[in-house]
């Protein structure tokens, strides 16, 4: 049975009609849904239609044999997690070894022993179930900070590798936070501060996702977002800049809401943007994962956000972001070269005319 209680779907691939009928009847008697293919080509067609939970694959078949089918299944990122159990005669042990090396889960010798058949099928199905549970968990974790449409793409691309670890990507990092939130929190009851913060972060998070960015987590009264990770995009800098504009557009609406609710007069925000290489991936422990970005690029973006406090600008972007823009806008204004903490060379900074 699957995790959701539905019957497991098993694909039987065998050119011999007697074996096909035998396995179909036997597996149906155990409560499984069974599909059969009489050759390798048909098996691959059926796998594309529906991946299923397990494949029983005969080694010796004319045309596309079991080894060739196995190789294709294991080379397919969408299907390589499906357990494949090879069916073999006792005198085919060399082929069996090769299949196990190629990623087959196990093998079943012919003629079938009822106890062995049930044990190996159940072991294969258990492993598939564990894989599905793990994938669903990863999907849940991911769905919180990546636009919905990208979740499946990421889960598929990374497959079993979606655990700890990261990849080096080229993208843009955006930090934003509320100015003087600490002072606000001192003057208001904790419940009010929490309500305001949740609404603010919720709105800003939506803006990030709406622009195709990934929400990488909350930092106190602000947040970090990435554009160009986990999915590479050529216009990561443009998207980040557009997101910053949308955040500034959103702010008056947010402040109006605060006044209506009697929660205060409103906030100002700071935004720092930097482009370049960074490591994006899952950091933490197996039980508590966080998808985040690490490197000089996110560090600089955080510093630029902090630097907006001493300037008339709400937004500061590094020259690396301006250079990465696919369609540079006409309202960027130079803000000179500045020393940025943690960097030896001064950084050329830019802002937006109206911000």
């Amino acid at each position, binding site marked *: 049975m699957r995790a959701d209680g539905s019957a497991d779907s098993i694909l039987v691939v065998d050119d011999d009609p007697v074996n096909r009928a035998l396995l179909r009847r*036997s597996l149906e008697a155990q409560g499984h849904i069974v599909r059969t293919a009489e050759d390798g080509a048909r098996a691959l067609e059926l796998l594309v239609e529906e991946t299923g939970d397990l494949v029983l694959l005969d080694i010796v078949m004319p045309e596309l044999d079991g080894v060739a089918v196995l190789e294709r299944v294991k080379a397919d990122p969408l299907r390589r997690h499906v357990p494949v159990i090879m069916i073999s005669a006792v005198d085919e042990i060399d082929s069996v070894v090769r299949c196990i090396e190629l990623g087959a889960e196990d093998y079943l010798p012919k003629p079938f022993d009822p106890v062995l058949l049930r044990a190996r099928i159940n072991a294969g199905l258990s492993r598939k179930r564990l894989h599905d549970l793990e994938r669903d968990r990863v999907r849940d974790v991911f769905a919180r900070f990546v636009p919905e449409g990208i979740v499946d793409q990421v889960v598929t691309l990374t497959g079993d590798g979606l655990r700890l670890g990261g990849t080096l990507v080229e993208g843009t990092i955006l930090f934003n936070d509320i100015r003087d939130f600490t002072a606000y929190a001192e003057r208001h009851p904790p419940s009010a501060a929490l309500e305001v913060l949740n609404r603010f972060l919720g709105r800003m998070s939506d803006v990030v996702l709406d622009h195709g960015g990934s929400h990488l987590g909350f930092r106190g009264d602000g947040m970090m977002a990435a554009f160009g990770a986990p999915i590479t995009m050529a216009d990561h800098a443009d998207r980040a800049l557009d997101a910053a504009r949308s955040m500034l557009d959103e702010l008056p609406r947010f402040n109006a809401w605060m006044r209506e609710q009697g929660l205060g007069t409103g906030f100002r925000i700071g935004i720092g943007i930097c482009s370049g290489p960074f490591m994006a991936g899952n950091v933490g422990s197996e039980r508590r994962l966080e998808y985040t970005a690490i490197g000089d690029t996110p560090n600089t973006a955080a510093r630029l956000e902090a630097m907006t406090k001493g300037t008339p600008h709400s937004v500061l972007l590094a020259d690396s972001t301006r250079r990465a823009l696919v369609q540079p806008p006409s309202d960027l204004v130079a803000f000179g070269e500045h020393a940025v903490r943690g960097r030896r060379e001064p950084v050329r900074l830019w802002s937006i005319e109206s911000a």
Partner: protein
Amino acid sequence: MGSDSVHQTQHHAQLALDPNAIAALRDLLGHDAHALREIIDEFLCAAPDCLAELRSAVASGDAEAAARAAHTLKANAATFGAVALADRCRAVEAQARSGPGTADLAQVDAIAAEWVHVDAGLRAVRPGAA
């Protein structure tokens, strides 16, 4: 046919199939008589074609086709516990794989003769129409 030879045929038919293999099949099929009948019918239907293929492949010296036909028949025979038939087929398959022109028609005749016993044995264990 004298009563002795009828007896002999029944005796051969009983010997042709290993009862343990038939018991394992029943277990595999969840003791579903209808399913057992279906599987036996599949074999009764497929085996004569397979034998014919084997004969023509051996006659024409097509070692690859001979090995394939012998392989299929061997596997099916083993499934039903037709040990003697499986052994004969295994020998032909091994010979055919070792090179062309090595398996001869006398071996195919022996397989066909054994099949007669297996056929009778299968019909004896085949559950009647429900």
